[in-house]
């Protein structure tokens, strides 16, 4: 499994929800951005799976809705 760091997570989220990376930080969560909806959530998880080569279970998808929770989960 490849490791992923904060910058990479921010970059993935930024690319998917089309928000400048500068506007996203470790405390950002889905409710802060109207474009971080359930479809964006699926795309974020799929992208993370691709980079880390780690399968994320469906039941975790609803919990990983903030930068911090994603980072903690992948630690």
């Amino acid at each position, binding site marked *: 499994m490849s490791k992923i760091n904060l910058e990479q997570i921010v970059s993935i989220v930024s690319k998917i929800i089309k928000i400048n990376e500068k506007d996203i930080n470790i405390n950002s969560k889905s*409710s802060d951005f*109207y474009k971080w909806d*359930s*479809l964006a959530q699926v795309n974020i998880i799929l992208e993370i799976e691709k980079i880390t080569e780690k399968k994320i*279970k*469906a*039941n975790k*998808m*609803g919990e990983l809705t903030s930068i911090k929770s994603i980072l903690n989960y992948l630690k």
Partner: protein
Amino acid sequence: MLFHSPVFLFVFLPIVLLLYFYTSKYSKFAYEYVLIIGGMFFYAWWNIYLSPIIIVSIISNFFFGNLIRNSIQKTFKKKILIISIFFNILFLAIFKYSDFVIQNINYLFNLNIKTLNLPFPLAMSFFTFQTIAYLVDCYDGNIKKTNLTQYSIFIIFFPQLIAGPIVKYNHMMPQFNDEKNRLFNLKNLNLGLIIILIGLFKKIFLADNLAILADTGFTNHQNLEFFGSWLTSLCFTFQIYFDFSGYIDMATGIALLFNIRLPTNFNSPYKATSIINFWQKWHITLANFLTNYIYFPWVKSLKKVSFINIMIIIFFVFVIAGIWHGPSWLYVIFGSLHGVGLITNHVYRKLFQYEMNKYLSCFLTFNYVNLTFVFFRSENLDNSTNIIKGMLGLNGFDFPSYSEDKMYIILILLISMLISFCFKNTYYLIEKFKTS
């Protein structure tokens, strides 16, 4: 027993509340029995003969949950999960949808099978979803320890038993098990009572009055012209919001008297700027259930995830949401229209970077929701089409002739609009006066 009935407010609630705090002083576990017996009494008050159904559901699902949690073999665990979910859906389907299925079979094949006319057990749709969430959480290893008493409290805790919010085991049980929450808390009592009063105001003053005009309109739909149709649909759209959110406020306030915080279920939904946003604000716990227990697992089960696949799943998830509300094709239309609305939003976000003006998008979203509620409230498709025709001006533009005693409802409608669009909601109040 309804929350706004005198017997609940002035007899049942004070007795259970007193017993809850009084017995907690002397015994570590007595509060559990107070809540279970109180919940059973509350449930049986509606129809004592149907109360065994919830007992059967509690005992069998506790057994299923234990079997799932204690199984070491993964395939066996999965089999039990599937069987238990199937059992719960079948249980719900028999009581709620059997006549609907029979009527449709009769219509399609020109048969004359007799309907079963089974009574529908109160709260079954809610506790079925709550139970499924519990079973999946057992499967995922999120619930480590439980017993029949604790599981019973989770299902039968009366403030959220009848109409939600749909709660999760791990949200509720740590609160019940926190000894601090069994001590009388004046701050929570005050805040709880304020929230109950807000709920009562929404239900009795706003919703019940709006219902008068909405019911009149939906009954006399053939005679409705432009203004009458709009008044009817708007009255219902605000009636259902204040009815449901008023009920949820009362549930939240009552739970707070027991020092229990229920999750947010409504967050000013009519201020939503898209249908996606609407479902982030309307019946939030149902939307979360649909997202976490149907949508995400369904998407993850796909071999190839594509935008089109996801849109199809979204549509069917909302068809399920529609039929969950009741056994009628009109609920299916309601759900389908929301599915279409969500797809439209997603396609728009994918194709256009341009962000629509906030007020315009709020206006469009509200009107779309208002249109979908016409199907939700109608008795049949004729009823819906007549009202929509009226709203489009196809039945003329005369003013409706309401009797004088109903004119005050128009003022109540304006107050409802003002509250919905301009005021902060109950959860803002809760956050502001954070409970200890």
